[in-house]
């Protein structure tokens, strides 16, 4: 069989190899086109052909290996890094807050990066998660880890309640969610409801305080949020979302159930924020409505996600690590400085690098290729 494809039977080495030792060391059967090159390479044809074959095949197999392993890597590496981080930098509350922001940035990524809906009021889910979990822990005595699940469930409920907002587009959606978040805050902090929500007087979770367990909850949430985004990057569901983002009408025409898929993304995103809120509440253990409903939480999550690059798995993670780390490194005592710096950063991002770090990396790679 290989003999037939050999275009140059006159070359002695080739003839020799082809007739006497077909299985010498090159299984040339599958890539016949390489043989003449190997044969023409000279007297030591076989090793040359072998190395050539190897170099041709290995990137392919390494590629499939990478493709196969990369989702696990994308989940495992961040979790592993955060798991060892306390050994290097023992400020647990800072690390938990960073993990909370990773989850929030990935949540923004799910809804904005994949469907194009930008929720300015994203913090509403965060706050509801914090309150739902805290009240469940205080009023019904469920263990704190269950509280985290309750927090996510509470945020999903709010997401369902607000799901009609998905009918709005662009700016209307963004501002309507902002109004919704402000409304939820003003309900929760209303002194008239102090019997239920403790109104403006805040929550004290001191009785269940456990920094290590909360840290583990944070690790789990980071892993989950990475897994969700990796899944979206590689599944038909994620593809459908991106199709909706680009053009809802064409997506519907191609058989995508626009309403259902969009709703699912919205609820996943709200669950992530709710769980993040619960982890945060558990970690700080004493907080006021203004701390979990501050619009700056939305700002941070959006900036971190945009800075890293939305629509990618690593972008929001890297964005959060860099910017929130920077925030801590500068040692900003005055939150206004951070707000101002992030404000300017948003402006600069939009005007100069709309694709974020991931966009920059992509264009560098493209230029090199």
């Amino acid at each position, binding site marked *: 069989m290989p003999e037939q494809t050999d275009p140059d039977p006159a070359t002695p080495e080739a003839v020799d190899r082809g007739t006497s030792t077909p299985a010498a060391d090159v299984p040339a059967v599958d890539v016949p086109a390489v043989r003449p090159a190997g044969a023409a390479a000279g007297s030591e044809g076989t090793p040359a052909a072998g190395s050539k074959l190897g170099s041709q095949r290995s990137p392919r197999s390494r590629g499939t290996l990478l493709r196969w392993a990369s989702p696990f890597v994308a989940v495992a590496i961040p979790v592993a890094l955060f798991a060892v981080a306390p050994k290097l930098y023992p400020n647990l509350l800072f690390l938990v807050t960073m993990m909370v922001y990773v989850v929030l940035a990935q949540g923004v990524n799910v809804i904005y990066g994949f469907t*194009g809906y*930008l929720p*300015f009021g994203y913090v509403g889910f965060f706050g509801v998660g914090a309150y739902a979990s805290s009240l469940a822990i205080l009023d019904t005595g469920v263990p704190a880890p269950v509280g985290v699940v309750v927090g996510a469930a509470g945020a999903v409920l709010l997401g369902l309640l607000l799901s*009609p*907002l*998905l*009918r*709005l*587009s*662009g*700016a*209307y959606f*963004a*501002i*309507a969610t*902002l*109004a*919704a978040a*402000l*409304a939820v805050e*003003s*309900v929760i902090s*209303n*002194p*008239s409801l102090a019997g239920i929500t403790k109104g403006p007087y805040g929550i004290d979770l001191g009785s269940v305080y456990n920094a290590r367990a909360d840290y583990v909850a944070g690790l789990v949430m980071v892993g989950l949020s990475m897994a969700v985004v990796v899944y979206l990057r590689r599944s038909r569901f994620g593809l459908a979302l991106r199709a909706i983002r680009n053009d*809802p009408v064409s997506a519907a025409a191609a058989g995508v159930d626009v309403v259902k898929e969009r709703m699912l993304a919205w609820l996943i995103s709200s669950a992530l924020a709710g769980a993040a809120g619960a982890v945060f509440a558990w970690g700080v253990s004493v907080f006021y409505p203004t701390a979990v409903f501050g*619009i700056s939480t939305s*700002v941070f999550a*959006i900036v971190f996600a*945009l800075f890293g690059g939305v629509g990618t798995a690593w972008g929001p993670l890297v964005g959060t690590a860099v910017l929130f780390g920077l925030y801590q490194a500068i040692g900003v005592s*005055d939150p*206004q*400085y951070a*707000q*101002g710096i*992030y*404000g*300017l*950063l*948003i*402006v600069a*991002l*939009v*005007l*100069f690098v*709309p694709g974020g770090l991931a966009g920059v990396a992509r264009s560098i790679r493209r230029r090199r290729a």
Partner: protein
Amino acid sequence: MLLEYALVSGLLFGVFYALLASGLNLAFGMQRIVNLAHGDVVMLGGFGAWELYYGFGVPPLVTLLIVVPLAVAAGFLLFQAVTPRLSRSDDPEMLSLVLFFGISQTIEAAAALTLSNNQRSLPSSSLAGHPMTIAGQTYPGTLVVSAIVSLPILAALFLYLYRSPLGRATRAVMADPQEAAAVGIAVKRVSSLSFGVSLALAAMAGVLGIFLFGGASPSEGVGLTVISFAVIVLGSLGNPLGTLVGGVVYGIAYELTQTYLSSWADLVPYVLLLVVMLTRPSGLLGRSARRA
């Protein structure tokens, strides 16, 4: 008695709210930009009134005129600087939203750092000393004067839009920028100028607002933007007359809640905004807001 008071003060507040929101409405007409920094410009107007009053003894009614050229110039330059980059991207509406969000955060932080982190207020005597009596009931003088001052400003805006050549060009750009360009209107210049005018309206509202909101503080911007947005959505986007209607409806709704359910009054703008967006997205007077 109580009801009558709530209705009249709601009406007076409503006229002021119309002024507060009219700038946002005008800016929205320009290439669908939602100026999320609108409330922060209002806040800056309030701080401007404070600084000029205590620094140079300028009465707020004069400040009202001083802020106009400053705001027009700032808006013109800002618009000229950012729109070329925005319009080159694939989703300018969304990006402009994010951009102005960033500008809003920057202004708020800068104001808190350089001006004051606390609320600042002016004595009501600097605008109108005496309470005024209308139909047997007394209202704060600042409220009556603010409403009386807002009306001619709104009238001037109306005349500018509907009776001047520049206003006609502005409306043409609002209706369709490409068509406007095709008939020889300098779209970019007209848009930039209108954006400046919209900021001037916001700053003027801020000068009056420092009295009506009981002071000015750096963090008030976001809330004011949402209120303004509620008013223009209520009155239907892009329609100046609608903004007046929206302002009055909002003012009366707020005052009624304040009177009968005072602890829930802060919810009014948010709930109104959400309800109107979901049930009557075209507003009370027409044009559609919902597209998805």
